[in-house]
């Protein structure tokens, strides 16, 4: 400290001072790599509770094996308050007071985008774990932001082969009325029209997120007499929609393609009422036979006595990705880390994948399958892993989508 503190100011800041000292003390003792993680734990507990467990599992595994470059990993998690305003303050706190080496996390798209903007401004490395919005890697992409999970575009593109193969002419669309739903439906329409020019979209229901009026919406879709439905609803809205559709027999004989509905977070609450025959993207943890996944599944079950959700995989892989990045960069220097992440190869529970240099998107894929009911619970039947790379636009196409970033 350069200038001596006056007594007055000292009193003003004493509590903060004590805290700062205690943190500095810790930092010097072990000198671990500090990962600052922020997420909407309170707003999205169903997804983020398992996510946090996944992260902690990965940190334990890495530290038990001696850490990265001889340094232990230290995870500092924060609630982002579920809104961008608080999230930026929390990010600032992690960077300025906790002196973290990288930022990671976020779930909701607008928070992810806000933190990405902050990372660009303050030149901090940011690994966006969850947010699905295409903008974070494309139109609003920046040098310091990478994203792990398969984006909205990728999830939709994974369903396309089945949607096209179904050979249906009259499609109805139902989606939550915000950017995720809107962009999923836009992508779906564009891709389907390209593959099947005579397709007709006979109904489009944009429902308020979390406040679906299931009866009228299901009826309106049934009245349009579609022979196929594309659904983007999830969580409580999905459960309402499914139950109402079954009671009304509204979707009998109708082909349904549905985003994310095979993820345990959204499928398990439906129990025996899971809509049989829907084609979905998701995570069938019970039906993946690869050794990588088996090792992850066993470790997770041993530690938590519970099965993993998709969130667990995302949290686990987030930490594994960062560790791989630190190892390749030989440290935590931000600029070196950015370069290291370009084309970084990571081995996750779904097998090896990479972070593309062109748009900073990870190529970790997802599973596509048909829903069925087994032992009173919903499952994905014959799930197939779709590699993220196979559904992403080429590097050249991405250049046009990503104007501002390198």
């Amino acid at each position, binding site marked *: 400290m*350069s*200038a001596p*503190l006056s007594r007055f*100011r000292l009193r003003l*800041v004493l509590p903060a*001072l004590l805290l*700062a000292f205690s943190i500095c003390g810790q930092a010097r003792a072990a000198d671990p790599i500090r990962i600052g993680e922020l997420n909407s734990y309170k707003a999205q*507990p*169903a997804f983020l*509770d398992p996510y946090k467990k996944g992260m902690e599992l990965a940190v334990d595994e890495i530290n038990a094996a001696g850490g990265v470059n001889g340094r232990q990993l230290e995870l500092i998690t*924060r609630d982002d*308050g579920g*809104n*961008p*305003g*608080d999230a*930026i*303050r*929390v990010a*600032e*706190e992690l960077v*300025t*007071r906790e002196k973290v080496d990288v930022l990671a996390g976020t779930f909701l798209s*607008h928070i992810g*985008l*806000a933190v990405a*903007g902050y990372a660009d*401004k303050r030149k901090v490395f940011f690994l966006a774990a969850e947010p699905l919005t295409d903008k974070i890697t494309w139109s609003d992409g920046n040098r310091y932001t990478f994203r792990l999970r398969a984006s909205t575009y990728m999830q939709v593109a994974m369903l396309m082969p089945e949607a096209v193969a179904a050979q249906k002419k009259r499609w109805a669309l139902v989606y939550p*009325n*915000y*950017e995720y739903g*809107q962009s999923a439906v836009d992508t779906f329409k564009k891709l389907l029209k390209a593959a099947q020019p005579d397709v007709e979209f006979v*109904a*489009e*229901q*944009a*429902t*308020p997120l*979390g*406040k679906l*009026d*299931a*009866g*009228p*919406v299901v*009826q*309106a879709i049934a*009245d*349009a007499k579609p022979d196929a439905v594309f659904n983007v609803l999830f969580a*409580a809205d999905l*459960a*309402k929609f499914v*139950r*109402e559709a079954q*009671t*009304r027999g509204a979707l009998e004989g109708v082909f349904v393609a549905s985003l994310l509905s095979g993820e345990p977070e959204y499928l*398990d*609450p*439906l*129990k025996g009422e899971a809509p049989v025959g829907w084609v979905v993207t998701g995570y069938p943890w019970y039906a993946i036979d690869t050794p990588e996944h088996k090792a992850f599944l066993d470790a997770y079950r041993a530690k938590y006595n519970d099965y993993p959700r998709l969130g667990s995989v995302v949290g686990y892989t987030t930490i594994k990705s960062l560790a791989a990045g630190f190892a390749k960069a030989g440290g935590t220097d931000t600029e070196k880390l950015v370069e290291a992440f370009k084309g970084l190869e990571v081995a996750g529970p779904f097998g090896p994948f990479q972070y593309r240099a062109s748009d900073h998107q990870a190529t970790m894929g997802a599973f596509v399958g048909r829903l069925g009911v087994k032992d009173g619970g919903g499952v994905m039947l014959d799930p197939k892993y779709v590699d993220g790379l196979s559904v992403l636009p080429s590097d050249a196409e991405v250049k046009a989508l990503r104007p501002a970033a390198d």
Partner: protein
Amino acid sequence: MSLDGLLFQALNGLAGASALFLVAAGLSIIFGVSRIVNLAHGSFYMLGIYLAGTLAGGFGGAFGFWAGVIGAVLVVAALGALTEIALLRRIYAAPELYQLLATFALALIVNDAVLYLWGPEDILGPRAPGLEGAIDLLGRRLPTYDIFLALVGPAVLIGLHLLLARSRFGRLIRAATEDREMAAALGVNEKVLFTAVFALGAGLAALGGALQMAREPASLSLDLAVLGDAFVIVVVGGLGSIPGAYVAAVLVAEVKALCIALGTVSVGGFEVNLSKLTLVAEFLVMAIVLIVRPNGLFGRPQPPARVAGRGEPPLRPMGRNGGIVALGVVAALALLPLAEGAFPYAPVLAVDMLVAVIFATSLHFIMGPGGMHSFGHAAYFGLGAYGAAYAATQLGAPTFAALAAGIVAAGLGALVFGWFAVRLSGVYLAMLTLAFAQIVWSIAYQWEAVTGGSNGLFGVWPDAPLDTRAGLYLAALGGALVVVLLLRRVLFAPFGYALRASRDSPLRAEAVGIATGRVQWLGFALAGALCGLAGGLFAFAKGSISPEAISVGRSIDGLVMVLLGGVESLLGPIVGAGAFTLLQDSVMRETDYWRALLGALILAIVLIFPGGLMGGAARLWALATRRAAR
């Protein structure tokens, strides 16, 4: 869309209407008698659906579902009674709206308690035995449970009507609704009456929730989702009018069903997807109804309270010593950036606190001295933020010009909305401001081209010299000082006296030649414009702006800050805003259950200082000086 289809959708709407009505009826009864704005009402609903699901599973069998519903209603009604006895009864003497603060804290605690007890995953309850199927009607299939629900609403309506019109209990409730003091003077045991009413209201909310168990999963976001709807229904129907609430529920549900049924229509060559309108349908209905009928559809003008509490003491200027202390504090704050090396987070947190100070001070101006309880102050925060962000990113305006643009945008918004709002008073005014805020929110949420839709606008960073943490902090400090001093100056100017006169006695104020309507309107517009500065600073501090800046949550935060600090003191909003921001920032780090902790802390403050922090300080000061004088 065929006529059959529309008719069928109207039937669907009736089921939805019953669901809305059940929640709203309880709120209406509680408000009618006790004048408590019960923010925990949605929590009772949520507890109802969780408890019913668990109990139904526990009892099992065909009987289990109905036993679960009844059990949930009884348990929640008992909880309601307990809340009234243990919590609310202690603060009836506090200034109006402090019960709001207590119920807000309670809602936070209940949400975390539910998370703790039932876990984070959504829980889909059982279907109602015997009512799982559907009947064929108009060539479509109508679920029998929907028919059942559509009948439950009117049945409860008739039951409540009989209870209120025919029973002694009902007569007492009506008497207390009409004139609390007179009822008490005639020997009615108010305490028992209030407890019973609160239990009844909570039980009705739980019934609404429990009956939804067959239609939707229990989830942790239900409390807030339902709360807004319930307020809308109560206000549209007219406060205290149970039949009004039913009519309002039908109106809102049918408007929504119609929007959904019509789907995409083309108007003059444009494709309009009416289903998107369901995002704000209820608030549009409320705004229109309140503009046309200021007391709701079936409401009567509220009887003037015989004794308006003890009346608020007049404001006093600070005096010389106070001024010196304030000057010292400001000087110390101006030096804060010097400590940035040691406490790099301090300026960051301080900017958020200063933004909150501007927000809360401008709200306090219309709420306290203005007497207009705005539940939608976030509208002007949001207009300021979006105005500044749009000017900076799309028009390339320099930072100060962008901030000015934000102030202008917020001021214009407040001028327009204020013109309608000042025609109303009390809770109707509060709800109209809320409706306007929701309408602004929905526009920001939907207008992709200008506002960036649900994601918002990004890259809103200030230029030099404000682009450092210290620079922005000093700008925010300057802005907050200007706002606080300006509003204080206005309050001690003739305009401020006129504003307070209009609040304290509109009739006498008119009689001495004060145009009360115009004074309130201008006061509203001034507060809105200055709030725009808070929004602008917020956008630059975060580098982005999204529709959450206009959400109900932010409006409620503002109310909480003002009430926490003390509504009867000019320092109140400043202390409240600082304390709330600091508290939230620190509890968020402390525990996974930070909402409950925040709620408990607020509850403690409310119980210890029923007049807010400054109210408590004033009482302590009075006590100390009296001791010293002896």
